[in-house]
């Protein structure tokens, strides 16, 4: 076990993502890497910290203006998300909640231009930072609101829905064949193994921090969803659902509820 950890460490130091175990590193291994000071995701979280305290909206407010220095009032918030928010009257995940805060309370415009900038620039660092404020706390998603219950059932339906050119569902890979390999990549079991506790996660293969929205969009790309009579890679491939869609939140709620009781340890670290 020790030598495996050492190998992973070595591969990371060398900046090599190939050749080491495809398994998700354990929290212990992440901790060890943290001590060595080589977690690239920390840089992204620091960027989020900077936005949180210093990025002013058109009306002069920062995130910290409402949520307190060092996000004092947001401690534990991520452990309960996605959930229903009265002020925006919808069930929101972390991505949507932050976007709504910025447009509703900081005065950023609700237009396409800001949406794009938010998605590309602010979303992941801020989500990463806010998520870390719940580190060490137990995930506790409750379905108190009827909208949450409805969203959960919708997520469950999507989880088992076989569809697209590859007749896939989330469950066929990540439940029925969880633990098996696609080529050399082991399939994780987010529901059974409560993997949500490690999301948002940094992926070495992409050199990016991903929220669960990014992850689900990536999965749907491999479904080969199409609209025409036959699947056509060039013309007719409906690759990824756009960000902030209800479908993404529903699947997040379904998976996070399954992770109840697990301790938030983010950002996670993946191949």
């Amino acid at each position, binding site marked *: 076990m020790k030598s495996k950890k050492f190998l992973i460490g070595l591969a990371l130091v060398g900046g090599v993502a190939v050749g080491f175990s495809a398994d998700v590193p354990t929290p212990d291994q992440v901790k060890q890497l943290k001590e060595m000071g080589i977690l690239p995701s920390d840089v992204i979280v620091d960027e989020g910290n900077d936005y949180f305290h210093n990025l002013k909206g058109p009306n002069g407010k920062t995130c910290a203006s409402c949520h307190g220095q060092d996000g004092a009032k947001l401690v534990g918030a991520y452990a309960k998300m996605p959930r229903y928010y009265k002020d925006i009257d919808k069930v929101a995940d972390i991505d949507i909640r932050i976007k709504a805060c910025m447009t509703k309370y900081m005065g950023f415009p609700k237009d396409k231009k800001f949406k794009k900038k938010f998605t590309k620039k602010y979303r992941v660092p801020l989500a990463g930072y806010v998520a870390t404020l719940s580190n060490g706390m137990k995930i506790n998603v409750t379905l108190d609101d009827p909208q949450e219950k409805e969203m959960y059932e919708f997520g469950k339906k999507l989880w088992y829905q076989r569809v697209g*050119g590859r*007749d896939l*569902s989330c469950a*066929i890979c990540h439940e029925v*064949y969880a633990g098996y390999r696609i080529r*050399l990549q082991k399939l994780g079991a987010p529901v059974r193994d409560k993997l949500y506790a490690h999301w948002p996660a940094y992926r070495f293969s992409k050199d990016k921090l991903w929220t669960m929205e990014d992850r689900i969009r990536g999965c*749907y790309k491999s479904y080969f969803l199409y609209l025409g009579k036959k699947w056509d890679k060039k013309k007719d491939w409906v690759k990824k659902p756009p960000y902030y869609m209800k479908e993404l939140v529903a699947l997040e709620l379904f998976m996070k509820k399954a992770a109840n009781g697990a301790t938030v340890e983010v950002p996670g670290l993946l191949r």
Partner: protein
Amino acid sequence: MKKVLFTGLVVGLGAIVACQAPASKAEQKAEKPAKKMSKEEKFRAALAKQDKYQKACSNEKQLIPEGISIEQFKKDMLATIKYPEGGVVGDWKKGEKLFGDPKKGGKGLGNCYACHCGDPSIIACGNIGPSLTGYGKSGADPKVTYQRIYNPWSVNPCSAMFRFGVHGILSPEQIAHITAFLHDPNSPINK
């Protein structure tokens, strides 16, 4: 005259028409160019395009169809299979490239190595499906092999393997080439 006016309206307000009662043929024609789907709409429409059989497999068991007998399911799936003119056994060398080209690390249109092992020289192979090394020596009927690739659900309802032929991911000719790759005694699968 009224009809002309209405058709004009339809062109302008294609999105609204979609929510209304079924339109006549002329109106449907007018609707087409006006309606451009957003990415959200496209995704939802593609998700909704679930066929009867996918729906039957969308249960918590995943591998056993619900609401239809297994016999009927298999029979219906067998009826979807089209066969190539040149027979179900094609050119194994072409099949090798489709199965997963050894020169490209086992990548190919069929992407078979994602789930199956085959040519022992390709080490990066998945284990969701059974290993196919030595498959040709098993005595399987090439026609059944062809059917299993074209529509795996004709043999194993709701299996994780894609219905390559049904969706058009592989053409009948391409499936015949892969069948040859699996059966030919000179193929690295059987050496």
